[in-house]
């Protein structure tokens, strides 16, 4: 599996993602945001951080970076694209995922572990998880409040596109367990064809027992499992 991790000016989780992908055996390369060619990559990952200082809106300026045009093409051709935190915000701004991420209801930057439920395992990002599994994964964001209109939410629910949902330790969806006010407690969702995943929590920060959790590893193991079975 050959993974490209995109670095925008202001990205700060790119090395974590690099390391996480390497940990599951991937060949990983950084892609500078001005690069225009994505040939040869099996997966493209957009890291967390504060691209362009979050000016205008989080992700709004990064999405016009030269590399984004190719990422849109890559995704349209079925290539898996994973956006984490700021990467999720960029994917929404770029129109690869519907909806938007606005200021946390608390008005605070929320940096802590949360629990989330794996709701959809039929994706290249989650196939190694069990449906209903509860993961403990860190979040660190000020704008992670997923906003979408009622019609879109109904569609996302009906199509099974909500992959991760914030829950409490016992797996219940409560207001207290929702760290940012996201509609329907959405922590991660896919596009219509399921090859683009955006999520606010940071699986790449939950890869080592010594750092508190290995619950994020499933995302990278799933990609590795799905992409190494592709026979051309």
């Amino acid at each position: 599996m050959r993974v490209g991790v995109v670095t925008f000016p202001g990205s700060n989780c790119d090395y974590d993602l690099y390391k996480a992908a390497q940990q599951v055996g991937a060949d990983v390369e950084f892609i500078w945001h001005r690069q225009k060619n994505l040939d040869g990559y099996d997966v493209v990952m957009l890291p967390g951080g504060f691209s362009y200082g979050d000016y205008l809106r989080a992700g709004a300026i990064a999405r016009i970076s030269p590399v984004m045009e190719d990422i849109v093409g890559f995704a349209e051709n079925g290539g898996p694209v994973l956006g984490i935190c700021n990467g999720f915000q960029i994917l929404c701004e770029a129109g690869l995922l519907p909806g938007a991420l606005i200021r946390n209801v608390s008005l605070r930057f929320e940096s802590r572990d949360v629990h989330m439920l794996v709701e959809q395992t039929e994706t290249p990002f989650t196939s190694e998880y069990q449906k209903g599994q509860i993961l403990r994964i860190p979040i660190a964001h000020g704008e992670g409040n997923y906003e979408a209109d009622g019609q879109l939410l109904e569609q996302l629910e009906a199509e099974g596109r909500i992959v991760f949902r914030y829950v409490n330790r016992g797996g219940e969806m409560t207001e207290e367990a929702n760290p940012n006010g996201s509609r329907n407690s959405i922590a991660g969702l896919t596009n219509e064809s399921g090859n683009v995943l955006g999520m606010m929590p940071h699986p790449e920060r939950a890869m080592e027992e010594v750092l508190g959790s290995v619950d994020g590893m499933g995302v990278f193991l799933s990609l590795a499992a799905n992409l190494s079975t592709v026979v051309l």
Partner: protein
Amino acid sequence: MNHFRMEILVKPRPGLLDPEGKAIHHALRSLGWTDIHDVRVGKAIYIDLEAEDSVTALETTEAMCRKILANPVTEDFEVSVVGDTERITA
């Protein structure tokens, strides 16, 4: 070509939760302004540009709003000309 100063007001869409507006609402209430029903916070962007006339200036600025300055999922925008060549001294 003429110079125009454009004002763009980007506003949270009606019905959308505006936590910043809510916090300011609380602050104002605690300062004694108890008759406030609602507070919404948006932003103002000023752009100086050259255009044939004010209609073109408005069209250009509206295109910028649709393309990048406002997010149609969460924001509405309003564009106006607030100055022309003679009035812009800065």
